[in-house]
């Protein structure tokens, strides 16, 4: 999460580098407060976390320096490895589904029809609700016997499902909640993109006799790609660190079938009080997020920024 917020200003600063030399050195007093804050609330906690990860650090026992043994332990911890897998599956699904559905709904809401403003308002309501409150309501809806979802399925003749109560369906069910909540965000971003597209390409496409699908595939999609990219990035960062919905609905269960890195990290640090090992997980998790963010940033730089610059 902090990977993004940190890297963007860093990039901005390096762009401004040539200007820096022209300034007199008296700007330092203005930099110091920010520097102190950054040191105190970003750099220090990280250095300390790394330090903790190199120690056997259990609450209630003395700490001992153990080098990289916490990291070695990670490589042979099946729960951690499973958690990495769950995190990836969960992240991919809860990025892709809102992107697809969000784009579709943006295209729909871009049309002119009666009550559009009102329906748009209704559509973005899930985004405004508190995740824990949402989670509790969904938990009730998922209930295999008393929940409304199985009732609705029964109306169309589909047998009752176990939703979050079975290892095979728990992650898709959680993704359903995540998708329901965050599709509107993607919709809003894409809607903004659609509004910015000039009408000329559409007019010429119409003259050339392009089908609806061709228009979407060859005009709309490429032009909104940069916006989809932003939406995808925001979703990815949110999804990979998703905690509240999973914790409130399943706490990582059944068994450990929906235990993501974040949930496991929480258990290790705050239920098992194994701060050293927990810190090692946090460090690895951070590196994973940095890696994902870097890949996305690189891809954006490479493929799209030039396009959007020339397009605009």
């Amino acid at each position, binding site marked *: 999460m902090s990977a993004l917020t940190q890297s963007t200003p860093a990039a901005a600063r390096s762009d401004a580098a040539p200007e820096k030399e022209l300034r007199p050195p008296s700007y330092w007093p203005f930099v110091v407060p920010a520097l102190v804050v950054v040191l105190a609330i970003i750099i220090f906690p990280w250095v300390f976390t790394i330090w903790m990860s190199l120690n*056997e650090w*259990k*609450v*209630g*026992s*003395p700490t001992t320096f153990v080098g990289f043994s916490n990291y070695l332990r990670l490589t042979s*911890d*099946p*729960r951690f490895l499973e958690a990495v897998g769950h995190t990836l599956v969960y992240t991919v699904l809860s990025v892709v589904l809102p992107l697809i559905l969000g784009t579709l709904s943006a295209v729909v809401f871009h049309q002119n029809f009666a009550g559009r403003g009102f329906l748009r308002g209704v559509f973005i309501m899930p985004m405004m609700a508190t995740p824990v409150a949402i989670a509790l309501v969904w938990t009730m809806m998922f*209930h*295999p*016997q*008393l929940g409304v979802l199985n009732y609705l399925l029964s109306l169309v003749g589909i047998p*009752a499902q*176990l*939703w*979050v*109560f*079975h*290892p095979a369906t728990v992650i898709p069910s959680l993704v359903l909640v995540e998708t329901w909540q965050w599709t509107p965000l993607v919709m809003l971003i894409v809607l903004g993109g659609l509004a910015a597209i000039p009408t000329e390409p559409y007019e010429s496409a119409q003259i050339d006799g392009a089908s609806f699908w061709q228009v979407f595939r060859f005009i709309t999609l490429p032009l909104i790609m940069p916006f989809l990219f932003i939406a995808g990035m925001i979703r990815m960062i949110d999804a990979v660190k998703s905690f509240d919905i999973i914790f409130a609905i*399943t*706490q*990582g*269960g*059944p*068994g*450990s079938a929906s235990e993501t890195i974040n949930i496991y990290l929480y*258990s290790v640090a*705050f*239920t*098992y*009080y194994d701060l050293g090992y927990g810190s090692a997980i946090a460090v690895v998790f951070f590196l994973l997020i940095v890696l994902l963010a870097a890949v996305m940033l690189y891809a954006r730089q490479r493929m799209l920024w030039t396009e959007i610059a020339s397009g605009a």
Partner: protein
Amino acid sequence: MANHNISRRTLLKGTAAAGALSLTGLPARAEVNWKKYAGTKLEVILAKGPRGDNLQKNIKEFTELTGIQVESEQIPEQQQRQKVVIELTSGRPSFDVVHLSYHVQKRQFEKAGWLADMTPFMKDPTLTAPDLVESDFSAAGLQYAKNDKGQMLSLPWSVDYFILYYNKELFQKKGVAVPKTFDEMIAAAEKLTDPKEGTFGFVGRGLRNANMTLWTNFFLNCGGEFLDAKGNILTDGPEAIEATKIYQTLLTKVAPPGVVGFNWMESMASFTQGRSAMWIDGVGWAPPLEDPAASRVVGKVGYTVVPAGPKGQYSATYGDGIGIAAASKNKEAAYLLCQWVVSKKQGARLLQAGGGVPFRNSILNDPEVQSGVKMPKEWLQSVIDSAKISKLGLPVIIPVAEFRDLVGAAITSTITGTDPATELKKAHEQFRPILERSEKA
């Protein structure tokens, strides 16, 4: 919460004994000087629930008796456990008195030395009322409260026995007798299960971690012991496999769908809706079951002890206590509060409301207290009977949470059809090094 107003009547009541003795000039043996720490301010951290409610509701009486002001807060159990540990680790906890869950925290607290030793206080007649003696607490309570050296580090407050709740109406409808053994229970549950009607024979905790309190009752009744003499964990032995098979049968064949995600709350919901005929869980759920606003089975619930297994009949026992933070500066005042919390009056109130069962035999066995119990007579009988077959429901080790999570996940996965022996073996391969690390550290 704090109250400075001491009415004449309560003042008289509070000091009646001491007053009478000093007036008559008897060379009395020392009496508890309740007022000695008047003006002291105490902070208490409580886990949310009927115990905490019972304390907060009546705390004025304590302030009237002692002049000690008490600030208390109730926090949901899981969060309370975390907060307490973090604050105690800091060395400067914000509280003097702490409510702890023995089955989770006993070893951890002892090893870290977070609790003050109460033994000297208990021997001091100016601090301890004559009726508060060690021998009054049940064996399980003393086992929980004392460390290896025999020091009392807390006062046992409330005990939780696992019992069998059953729906009399469903039993009658299907002509089923109350089971005395696991075999009978499984047979009964099969008869009672009717998926078309949406009723099931048995419900219980399937959720990882939470399920370990239920599973261990099966384990104990299959003759299981948690640890050998050297402290090695034994929960993957033949008894464990047998217990898991019983558990698996019940939770897959005769339990409502989705039971794999059920904690006590979901199990209770199923039972109070009349959809499950039997439920094994802690004894403290009688009040919601008998509450017409929350339950459809009011007056139809039967209460009895957990059926016998192939090698014994036990009631898995858990409990909470109240202790003094070793870092507290008001230990004596805090001790007076702890003593009041487990006093006969407070204990009787707890039992009578069905909110918990005091560890003190003098309260549980007092006919007058018993006659005031608002829950059905059968419930009280199940409590008394369970006390006789009580056995600690979780191993007394430091990494209880890891144990519950890892082994609990294995047990949960058997509900989705995996093999008990393999799952237990896998879980213990992960758990053994953790246990070793924390006990040897």
